[in-house]
Every structure is written in structure tokens, then in C-alpha cells.
């Protein structure tokens, strides 16, 4: 129905990482480990000095600005730590913004479903300033989902939230993968947040330091402890 095979990425200092379609992957690592840079590169926000990035069969380094813009609009979704929404548009307009930018109607049944999943139907006509931090982040995730992208990148999506709203947001992301079949790559340094993922990729000094499947918070903390020693 959407997407095309595995979303595969080769990147950064000889590392070779691929992210599987329909899975929730977390990238972890200490500050300066290159996790944000990795994400910016595979999302087409930053350009590589050497090597190449693929989303599906598309080689990002061969794209010009216009093609990259279209790729971001149609194949990639973003969720940032803060400043995720356009302050002058209401929640619904923010959610459908990528579609509006591409002059597309979008799949209204899908959008309905996304909106139901974030359970903010009654706040759709509110401006971001009238929403709580957790609600804003849910709107941001809904926006990332709206165009049914091949892959969604989330950069510390819970970094600015308290633990309760953080877990709400994470649970919602989890549902987006399990129930809606989306692909999410999340950068985080929070073990609890990472434990929502199907798989964790650990980075250190620009290299892949290890991997973990079906993580729990405790397992992650143990692993990080070992990594630190």
C-alpha cells in the first residue's frame, strides 16, 4: 500500500546502518556521538562529505534542492525536540501542512484515523500556544504521519516533556508503528524512551557500538553502563 521495501541507509564514518520498514528504531549514544548528525544526514537535512544515503532506492546525494524538498514533503516526516509547529496555524492546519505545501488532498480517511489516534479531535482548531507541550508534540507526530511517509525521524521528541506526557507521546509513536504500520527512527538519550523501540542502535564516536532488540529500560541502562566502562 505504501513504502517500497526496506528503507536502507549507509552512513557516517564507515558505518553501515539500515532501518527496517514498519519498525520503531531508536538511536542512542552520548552527546557528541554523532547521533543527531547521522539523523540529519539520512533525513536529507545535511549533506555528506563522502558516502551515500538511500531511502528505498533513492540516492539522496544525487538529488538537488528541489528534489530533496519533494522527498522531505512526500517520503520523510520530522518530529523535533522543540519548535515543531507553525505558531500562526491551528492544530489541523499544522497536521495537513505537508499536504497543503504539496498541493495534495491527502487520504482523508487516513488523516481521520491519525487524528483519532492522537485523540485531539476536540482541539483541532486551537493554535499551538493554546496546547500543552505533550499535545503539541502529538500534533507534530500527526503532521509527520499525515503524508504517510516512508520513514519518520524524531529528534529527542520527549526531551522537553515531563515523564507522564513523555510516555503518552511515546505510546502514541509505538501505536503508529504497531497499529498504523509506520516506520520511525528516533534519536534519544533517554533509556526509558528507547525501551519503546523494537531495536536500538548504539553510537559512540561516530561508529556503531552495538545493537539491541526488544529492549527494556533496565537492559538499556545495563548496556550503557557496560559501554561506559
Amino acid at each position, binding site marked *: 500500500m505504501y513504502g517500497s521495501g526496506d528503507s536502507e541507509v549507509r552512513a557516517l564514518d564507515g558505518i553501515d546502518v539500515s532501518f527496517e520498514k514498519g519498525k520503531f528504531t531508536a538511536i542512542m549514544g552520548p552527546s557528541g556521538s554523532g547521533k543527531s548528525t547521522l539523523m540529519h544526514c539520512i533525513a536529507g537535512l545535511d549533506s555528506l562529505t563522502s558516502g551515500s544515503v538511500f531511502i528505498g532506492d533513492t540516492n539522496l546525494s544525487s538529488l538537488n534542492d528541489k528534489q530533496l*524538498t519533494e522527498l522531505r514533503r512526500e517520503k520523510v516526516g*520530522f518530529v523535533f525536540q522543540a519548535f515543531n509547529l507553525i505558531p500562526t496555524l491551528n492544530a489541523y*492546519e499544522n497536521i495537513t501542512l505537508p499536504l497543503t505545501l504539496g498541493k495534495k488532498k491527502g487520504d482523508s480517511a487516513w488523516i481521520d484515523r491519525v487524528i483519532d489516534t492522537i485523540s485531539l479531535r476536540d482541539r483541532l482548531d486551537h493554535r499551538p500556544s493554546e496546547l500543552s507541550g505533550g499535545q503539541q508534540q502529538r500534533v507534530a507526530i500527526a503532521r509527520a504521519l499525515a503524508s504517510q511517509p516512508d520513514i519518520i525521524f524524531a529528534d529527542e521528541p520527549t526531551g522537553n516533556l515531563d515523564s507522564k506526557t513523555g510516555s503518552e507521546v511515546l505510546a502514541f509513536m509505538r501505536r503508529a508503528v504497531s497499529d498504523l504500520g509506520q516506520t520511525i527512527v528516533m534519536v534519544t538519550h533517554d533509556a526509558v524512551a528507547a525501551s519503546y523501540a523494537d531495536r536500538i542502535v548504539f553510537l559512540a564516536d561516530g561508529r556503531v557500538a552495538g545493537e539491541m532488540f526488544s529492549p527494556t529500560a533496565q537492559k538499556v541502562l545495563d548496556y550503557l553502563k557496560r559501554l561506559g566502562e
Partner: protein
Amino acid sequence: MFRLAVKMTLARTGRLVLTSLAVILGTAFLSGTFVFRDTINQTFDRLFADVFRDVDAYVRSTTFLELDFGGEQRAATPVAVLDAVRNVEGVTSATGDIQAFARVIGKDGTPLGSEGNGPPTFGGIASSDSAGLWSITSGRLPVGPNEVILDKATADNGAFVVGDSVRVVAVRGAREFTLVGIASYGDISSPGGATFALFDQPTASEFLLQPGFVDAILVEGDDSVGDDVLAKRIDAALPTELKLETLTGAEITAEVQGQIKDVLNIFSTFLIIFSYIALGIGSFVIYNVFSITAAQRQRENALLRAIGASRRQVSRALLIESTAMGIVGSVIGFGIGILLSQMLNALLKATGFEVPTQGLAISPNSFINTLIAGVVVTISAAWFPARRAGRVPPLAALRDTALDTAGSISRRVVIGLVLVAAGGVGMFAAMNDAPVQVLGLGVLGVFSGILVLGPAIARPVALFIGLPVAKLRGASGVMARQNAARNPKRTSRTAAPVLLGVALVTAFTALAASIRSEIRDTFGNAFSGDIALTVDSQGFGGIPLTITDQIAELDGVAQATGVGFTSVRLIDPNEPASTTQASAAQRGVFVQTINPETIGGLFDLGVTQGDLGSLGADGIFVDAERAESKGWDIGTRLKIIRVDGVEVNAEVRGFVSGDTSFANYVASRDMFADAPSPIFDAFVYIKVAPGAVFDDVRDRVAAISSDAGIGTLQTKDEFIDDQAAQINQVLALIYGLLGLSIIIAIVGIVITLLLSVFERRREIGLLRAVGMTKSQVRTTVRWESVITSLLGAVSGVVLGIVMGIVVVAALSDEGDITFRLPVNETLWIVVISFVLGVVAAVYPAWRATKVNVVEAIAAT
């Protein structure tokens, strides 16, 4: 996307209006002038349509001179023609029309209506025929040589009632008349504030013009035939040797309406030019506002880019916003402009130029023009910031601070220097006799070069100007200085409108000061008398020659001579006829009329060759330069055609240098002695006889002039000051108009400071948190404002002085005008800029103290 962009724009109505301020101010003045012009035009259209309602045909001479400012002077028509016209079949009545100089003297002995600066003072014919332009509101028509009627406004101003004795001065001198009635022109009391004294036809002809002559004939038909048929019949009945023509009522109405429009349009064009300058200066403010807001919204734009907006979509969103600003600003500006037009009217009324206005003429054209000007200026000013906003990297969405993307400084310096150099070359060429357009391009080049260079020089200059502030105002001063220098692009853009305004003011002031001192020197050398009687009538009326001769005869007056002006057509018979276009041939030239017998030793016209005594009735002296360019020499014959159509075969008998002679040609008053349209003197120069008491002589001259109700009596020093001060009127007008640009510049500073305060609210919050007092915050903002304002003022003064030097050099031939620096005025400009800086900072500084410390620090 378009809908969203509109929505995003409307979501910030507050900012929309704030940033539209510059557009509002610029367009308000523009539309104000449009509405003002249309209202006056409409009023006069209606007035003349009403006044000429019963005029079906109009007979006048075909001999005329076109004068400057759209006026014309026409030969007189003999009264005998009146009878010929009356006998034409279909004519009900025919009446003479005269519009000539006449001044009503008030009961206190001073003339009514201001001299020179005010509206003209007329004399004319009162007639019972319905074709006459006047209707009697009280009393009766004047009959015989001793009766007069006045227009209602003049009668009211002078507190005259029917039965009073009224003194009137005209070409034949001063006379007493009995007021027998009051008249109105159409349905208004006086057109344009002019004064009117009306007589019966024979009296008017004799007293105002020449016995047996009128200016034109007004005809009313019995409506048995159409106006054009009637006009043809009259034309056929006119004596062919008199060169007369007949116009229909509609034609003369349209012509008079057109004439008044031409005059008014010169004035309104002047206003409109300055409102375009103001709008242009406003565009810098708009440009600055867009640059700053685009920088502040960098993250928002980057987010849009990150989620898939193309460069073009981001740019277009900003352009849509600017279009909205342009429309909103222009519409509000148009509304304010309507109010401004009323104020302009009130201002003119206060200065004596009462212009009758009935209702408001708001034409769709004015609205469309204002809207187009406003929107075009706004969009052009927003163009580059919008392009730059589209180029923001998507990654900037993740960065913390807003950055003003800096262009390459070295490229900027190169482009700026090239522009300045090119402009300099143009200005240098202009100093060496290149055409004035080159000077304009040169000035434009230097201006644009300086503006391009601005960001490169803003930092060092701002730091330099801020040095004393940092020394004197402690930590706040240091921060103010750094803030002014931290973003050189923004600072220079904010200072640019100040720079432009100040540079123009300085250049005009320097130019005026130089011309003034030149006039002073020239007149000081040329005028060797003691007293001058002057009338500033601007070519209409003046001192009757009889008065001049009377003064010359006075006891204690050693010598007195009059100088006047008149217009003639001048034809060079040696020039091929094809080069003189038919219409150009109707153009008049000014001739200075003198009395060769009395002028010697009293006023030096700068004769370079020849003897004024040789002028006679058919001699002429020509400006030496003009003669050289035309190839005329002593003995060259030129055809002079007087206003009355009489041709004089004149001979060039000498040359003058152009400094103290007000016109290019000088003739003896004898040349015009037999003309039906008499000439006047504009100046009478008087030398007191040795041994006579100065004050006594002065009193005797004053008695004659006040008896005649004419002229201003001045000592030599006063006269010279007065001549030099004439430039001040022009300067005052220019100051007033440039003042508007200065207001826009202040608004620019206010907006920039407000946006800066908003942008730095975290920083201000932090400073407050670590112990900065509110008053210190205010001090910081205030001094940043002052430094910015002074940056513009100082560089503007420097630029203005350079421009002044160049313009003076370009205008003066053979260096006869030397540049003078108006030290006092220049210092005042700097002081005023300082004060403006303080004033502009008041509101932004207050806003800065309102920053909530906790929120500011927590805000992300």
C-alpha cells in the same frame, strides 16, 4: 498554500499594522495631495461652469504671449467691436470683460490682499448683462467715473459697506471711489481669495487698461441657434484687420478651467514629487522591517523547509504578506490622506491662499494610484528579504538563535566603492559643465553606493560614535554601543532613512546659504542708492510709472530710477523659420524695463559693452552669454512683438552680465510708452541728496507709496537682506516636505528597536535576572537609538556637504558662486538627530522593561 499564507499573515495583525506604518505615512501624503488637487480642480471646474453658464460666445484678440506657469497675456480689444457684436443676429447682449491689476486700500491705509505672496488683486467691469460674470448681492451697479463695487469677501475683510469711500490703486494711479454695491462671483464670495474692484465699462477701460479698450467680450445669445453657429456669425461680423477670434461658451469655459488646472498642477506636482521621495525613504523602513522579521522567523521558515516547503513557497509566503501590508497600509494611508488634504487646505487658508473647496473629490484614480504606489513600493522592498528567507537551510530549524544571514562583506565593499566612484565621476563631470541629468545620475550613484557600503562602515562608525556613550554611561553605555554595532546590516538599514533625509536637508541648506551670500554680495555691489521701494507682484501689476516719476521729483531725492519687467515675443530673423515651432513662437521672454536716463550710478546692471543711454525706443541689451550662444553682436536686428501685437524692429546695442539683471534682455521703458497694456516698475531705487536728512526723505517717499497703497520701503541693508531671504521661502517649503521623510525615518527607528527588543528578550531577561535595573535597561535602549540616529545624521551631513559643494560648483558658471558651509544649521541638524534618537527610543525602552524575567529565560 496561498490561503495558508494569507492566514499566517492575518494571524499577526498587530505586526501587520506596525510594519505597515511606513507604508501608511508614505501613501497618506501621496493620497492627500491627490485628493487636495482633485478637490480644488473640481471646485474650479464647477465654479467656472457656473460663472460662464450664460456666456454663449467669447470674443478676444488672437495676439497673445504664453507666460511661465501656464499663464498668458493677450492683446486688448477695442470697445467699438462691442457694437459690431451686438448687431449680430441672435445676440441678446454683449459686454466687455477686463481683468487687470487694481488694489483696494483698506480703511487703515494698508492694501487689502497680501502683496506678491498672496492671490492676485484684480480690477474689472460690472455689468447688468446676464453674460457678465458677477451678480450683485446688495446695492446697485456702478455708473460713471466715481463709483465702484467690491467682491463680497473683500468688502467683508475691509469692513466696507455701501456708501463708503474706497481708495483703489491701478495703472493710472490712486483714486477715490464711492462703494455702491457688493457682488459675488458665481455663488462664492471671491474666487481663490483674490480681491476685485469693479467699475462701469468706460471707467474700467480708462482706469485699468487704456481708454476705449477691453480685454475681451462676453456674449449672450437668444438661443435661437446653437453656440457654434452663433460664434461663426459673430466671427464673420468682426473687423478682419483686428485679428480677433470667437470662442463658444463651452470652449472658453474649458480653457479657463484648463488654465487654472495648469497653475495648480505645478504646485501639486511639487507636492507629489516630495511625497514620492517620502515613500521611497519609507521603502527603506519596509525593507528593514522585512529583513528583521525574516531573520526572526528563520526557524519558522526552516521548519517549513524541513517538512517540505520549497524555497519558492517560503519566499512567496513572505511576498503575500508584503502584498497584504502594502494593501492594508495604502488603504489606511488613503483614509488618512483624505484628512491630510483637509489640513493642507486649512494650512493654505492660514497663509492667505484661500482656495474655495466644495465637498471632497475622491476620484477612483487617486485611490488606484495610491494603492499601486504603496503596493509596488512594499513588494519591491520585501523582494530581497523574501528571497533570502527562501534560502534558509532547513537545519536552521534546529538551531537556537536567529541569525541575520550575512552576505559577503568584501563583495559589498567592491560594489559599493564602484557605485560611489561611478557617481563621483558623474558629479565631477557635472562640475565641468556636463548636463544636469549627469549630476542627477551621479548623486543617485553616490547614494546607492553609500547604502551598499552601509553595513561595512556602520560597525566602525557606530563604535566610534558610541565611544563617549560607553565612557559616560557605564555598563548600560557599553552595552548600548555594542548593541548598535552588533548587527551592522540592521544598524545601517535603520540609519539609512535618517541619512537620506539629513543629506538632502544639508545639501539644500548649503546650496541656499551659498546662493544667499552670493545674492548679498551681488546686490551690495550693484545698488549704490540708500532706499528701495519694492513690490513683489510676480509679473502682475506693480508700481505705476507715474509714482516712480513722482518720487524722483521729491525734495531731497538726488536720483530715483525704476526697474520693471514685461513679456514680449522675440524672433531672431536670421534663424530659419522651421526651427521655431509655431507653439514655441508664442512663448514670451522676460524683458527688464529701465529708465536709461536715471539708472546710471544708482543701480549697476553689469553692462559689459555699450552705453545704456543709447537704448532709445528700439534698442535692446542682451545677456552676454546668451548673445554669444545665439551668435548675436552689436547691431544685430531682432524682431520684438509686444503683447498688443505691435512689432518693434530692435537693435542689439550692448551686453550685460547675468548677475544683477533679472532677465536676459534689457529695454528702455520708452519701447512700451504707447502700449495699451501698461508696464509697471517692480523696484524703485532712490539716492538721497547730499545734505538732505535721510529720515525726512524716507518719510516723504513713504507718504507717496502709502498714498498709492503700493510697495514696501526698505533701506539699502533691508533691501539686500530681503533679496537674499527670498531663497528662504523655497527652503522653508523644502524643509517642510523633507520633514515628512524625517518622521518616516523616526518611525523606522522605533520599529527596528521594538523588533530588536523582542528578539533580545531572553537576553534582557537574563540581564534583569543578574541585577540590571529597569532604568539601566531603558538607558541601554535609548543610547542604542541615539547612536543609530547619529550614525545616519553624521554620515548624512558629510554626504550632504559633499553634494552641496558639487551642486554649487555645477550651478555656478566660472565659479561665481562659492560654497559656504552653513555651520549653525549643520550643528542644529546633528542636535535634532540626537533628540530624535531619544524620542524614538521612548516606547521601545518602555517595552524592554516590561520583559517578564522568568518567562524570558524559560522561553525556547
